[in-house]
């Protein structure tokens, strides 16, 4: 492919993110947005129930976010425990492939 319309650049070189970093940040941004929206959903459900159950305190959005962050940590912790248990139950059966693991081929 021939390109004769070279852009004109001047000054010192700049440093920008690589595609890999951009894709990762996009994914992180998306999951954070999902968590923030889910916090809004949790707050709505909680406060709807609080009308019928006076013992439940009203929940602010900040507390809902704090609650889902706590739940998120617990979820990740459980998943980590599951992966540990998997290794205990099937030692050596999994091999690292890139950023994740796959079952080793049978000998």
């Amino acid at each position, binding site marked *: 492919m021939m390109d004769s319309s*070279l852009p004109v650049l001047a000054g010192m070189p*700049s440093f920008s993110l690589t595609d890999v970093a951009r894709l990762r940040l996009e*994914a992180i941004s998306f999951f954070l*947005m999902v968590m923030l929206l*889910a916090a809004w959903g949790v707050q709505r459900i909680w406060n*709807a*129930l609080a009308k019928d159950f006076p013992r439940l305190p009203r929940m602010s959005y900040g507390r809902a976010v704090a609650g889902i*962050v706590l739940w998120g940590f617990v979820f*990740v912790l459980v998943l980590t425990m599951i992966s540990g248990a998997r290794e205990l139950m099937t030692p050596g059966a999994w091999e690292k492939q890139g950023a994740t693991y796959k079952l080793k081929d049978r000998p």
Partner: protein
Amino acid sequence: MKGRPISIIVIVLLLVLFVGILGSAWMLEVPAYLLLGWVIYPFRIVPMVRVNVAAVGVFVIALPIATWMLHRFCAWLWTGSGQASTWRWKWSIAGMAGVMLMFVIGVAATGVVHQTGWLITSPKPLVTSSRPAVNRIKCGSSLRHIGLAIRNYAKNHSGYQPATFADVVDAVIAYEESADCFVCPASDHDRAPGTQPADWRVALLESDAYSSYAFAVPGTLAPDGRAVLLYDRTIDYHQNGINLLLADGEVVFLDNPAAETWLAKQ
């Protein structure tokens, strides 16, 4: 208090300007992608998602059954604990919606943790420099200068273009009064040593080490059919292609793999 938001905006703008001057665009990109990346992400991911119709079917059937079972269980527990009122469907649906949300939150939290982990431990570079692009432009500019010198040569030689590399060297040294433009900044070539044009001429003709560009045998054509005068000796300068100086003075960039194929024929 009114002046506070304005001063915050001014500070942020100054910071943006400062970071921009430093050439560290990535410092601005990180918060920008964190703030707005969620808009782009679904457009990239959704087309790649494969819908498992059977799994969706199981979910659609299981959800109302599970909600009904939850409702029956809660109603039994509610009545059994001596409550006078009845357990409402609204509460069961809210409970089931809460479970769904908890699952979504868990998946999202796992996504954040894993993506952050991969980002931090990535063996690939996270930041790239624009220097290769700048070098490519400078290289093209050097070739354009050589092209001007060659046009000047042709004007003084009844329209005939240089037939040998020595003619090119003479044309450039006479026109530019320097041999600097024979060196592509992305290459490891040195400028021709010496202080006099005669020194540069001898150096350029004796060794390839002082010219990043090879002389194209007259009749050599670019992929688009135009005559080539000089070209980058190797794709190693820019990694993604080579610059060609055409007989009409234009410089074109030939991308890989076309560049590799073209160079192999020379």
